[in-house]
């Protein structure tokens, strides 16, 4: 009997993903023996050094976890603190928060679509090489990202690590005329976002589907950003406060990032595909029309087509931003406050990459005594490895170089933010006691 030869796909440093990670796949003619998405980005201990800090510092400290999705960390942080202190910002502040999140979705999704993922579908090693043959597309992407940056900068004070977000609202609310100064560019952006959808819809997609448990926020009236219950396509329906009872994090030996799973069920998928599948009817009518224009279904199980879903979310973000802009009324006060008390607060918001869970306990002086942060990339890690296992099993006939390329593309389906996923690691130290050596 001929023994099947074992082959290894080894990518020591994943390109076109944020952060530092590696891929290891061992397979033969019979199938896949081992898959590891190795995150070697060092752990960053944010949850530890939040302890002892004032509750008002949480949004500013946690925003430093990420340079592309700082607003997501700020939103989850402020909502968790407001949950703890029973603060409900008024509707006008709520709208401003949706608006800044629109800006972040645009800049994050566009960076990924144009700079990181589209090169895979068009056969380029990088966006720079892609630009030589597709200069107009890349210019469109750069201008779209700039529009998202402008929204975040206007509302947050600056593009990276905004300084205008605080518990209860913001330090300053913009004048209506300031927002309206962006209107023409946002209208251009909405049209350019539609072009992005059409462009992405024209790519070739591998025929790959799995039966995922999709998990996202869901809101009664709107496509979710900051509020809602946590639902899945398999019956999950809980409040953020119940998150810890249904989800668990495990440290896996080959990675510095924790793996998340649903207790008793296993891996799940968070992010644009989950949001889209679970909330299609909450997308604006214009966004649904664009999906229909490209004959894209309202439910998609092919992770390679997440680039189309991201493009649709970019269109939605521009459409939603224009809605908020055109109806904006400056709030009487830019933030609201409440008495400090000992409490625990919970929140989940939808970062561009998916669910971002924050939980904080504070004492009667408002000092943080405990913090837990679960970013979307660590939630998707097991699903990414399962995808790779299935993908390689289905693609054994491909040459190794093509299979390696396809695996890397499959990881990029999730737009992983590796720096976010390594925010925390439990560190166990064992000290050799000098007394054990007979020393005094």
């Amino acid at each position, binding site marked *: 009997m001929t023994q099947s030869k074992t082959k290894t796909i080894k990518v020591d440093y994943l390109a076109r993903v944020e952060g530092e990670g590696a891929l290891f796949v061992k397979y033969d003619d019979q199938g896949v023996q081992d898959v590891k998405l190795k995150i070697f980005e060092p752990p960053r201990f944010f949850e530890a050094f939040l302890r002892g800090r004032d509750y008002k510092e949480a949004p500013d400290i946690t925003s430093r976890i990420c*340079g592309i999705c700082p607003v997501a960390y700020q939103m989850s942080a402020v909502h968790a603190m407001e949950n703890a202190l029973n603060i409900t910002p008024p509707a006008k502040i709520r709208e401003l928060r949706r608006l800044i999140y629109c800006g972040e979705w645009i800049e994050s999704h566009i960076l990924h679509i144009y*700079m990181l993922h589209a090169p895979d579908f068009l056969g380029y090693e990088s*966006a*720079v090489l892609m*630009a030589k043959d597709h200069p107009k597309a890349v210019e469109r992407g750069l201008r779209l990202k700039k529009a998202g940056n402008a929204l975040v900068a206007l509302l947050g004070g600056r*593009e*990276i690590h905004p300084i205008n977000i605080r518990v209860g609202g913001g330090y300053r609310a913009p004048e209506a005329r300031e927002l309206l100064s962006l209107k023409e560019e946002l209208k251009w952006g909405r049209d350019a976002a539609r072009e992005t959808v059409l462009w992405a819809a024209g790519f070739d997609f591998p025929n790959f589907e799995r039966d995922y448990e999709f998990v996202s926020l869901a809101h009664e009236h709107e496509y979710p950003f900051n509020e809602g219950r946590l639902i899945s396509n398999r019956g999950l329906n809980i409040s953020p406060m119940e998150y810890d009872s249904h989800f668990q994090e495990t440290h896996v030996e080959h990675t510095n990032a924790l793996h998340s799973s649903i207790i008793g069920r296993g891996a799940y998928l968070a992010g644009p595909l989950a949001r889209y599948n679970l909330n299609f009817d909450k997308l604006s009518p214009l966004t649904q029309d664009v999906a229909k224009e490209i004959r894209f279904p309202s439910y998609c199980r092919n992770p390679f087509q997440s680039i189309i879903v991201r493009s649709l979310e970019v269109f939605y973000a521009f459409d939603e931003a224009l809605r908020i802009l055109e109806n904006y009324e400056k709030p009487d006060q830019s933030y609201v406050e409440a008495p400090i008390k000992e409490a625990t607060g919970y929140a989940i918001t939808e970062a561009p990459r998916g669910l971002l869970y924050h939980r904080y306990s504070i004492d009667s002086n408002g000092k943080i005594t405990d913090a837990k942060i679960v970013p979307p990339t660590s939630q998707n890690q097991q699903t990414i490895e399962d995808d790779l296992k299935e993908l390689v099993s289905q693609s054994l006939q491909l040459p190794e170089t093509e299979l390696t390329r396809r695996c890397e593309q499959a990881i990029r389906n999730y737009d992983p933010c590796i720096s976010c996923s390594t925010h925390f690691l439990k560190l166990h130290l064992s000290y050799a006691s000098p007394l054990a050596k007979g020393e005094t």
Partner: protein
Amino acid sequence: MVIGLGQRFRSDDGVGPFVLDKIRPLLSAQADLRECASDAADLLDLWDGQPVVYLVDALSSASGTVGEIIRIDGIYEKIPVEFGASSSHALGLAEAIELGRTLKKLPQRLLIFGIVGAKFDLGNQLSPLVEHAAKAVINELTNLVTTDLVNKEMFDA
């Protein structure tokens, strides 16, 4: 235009913003001073059409000497790969220049001051040798910008 590229809270990667902070009291009236913290692709809009751009950035190099200053003509010379991304989310300087070249979005003159750094982890302090090199770059930039202004005034007269 003087651009300081880098992240203030990643130790030596903050040398670009550090230089900008020091020259601001001296040159803010003579030059457009800009900080670019993350995505080098943002540079394309910043420097597009500018007559002269001086850019300060940290280098991560296994072979270089910490504190070494490397000067590169960004238009005519090849940018070393050590000018990597200041944020792992985004384009590095070398890629941004190539993208600018492809899209015809480059300044007329681009002089890059790269300072070889030692530490790029979380922190807001520069290594001593990097800070020393930064001070030399500050002096050089002050002379260059002042000379550019004098030359422009003579040309315009």
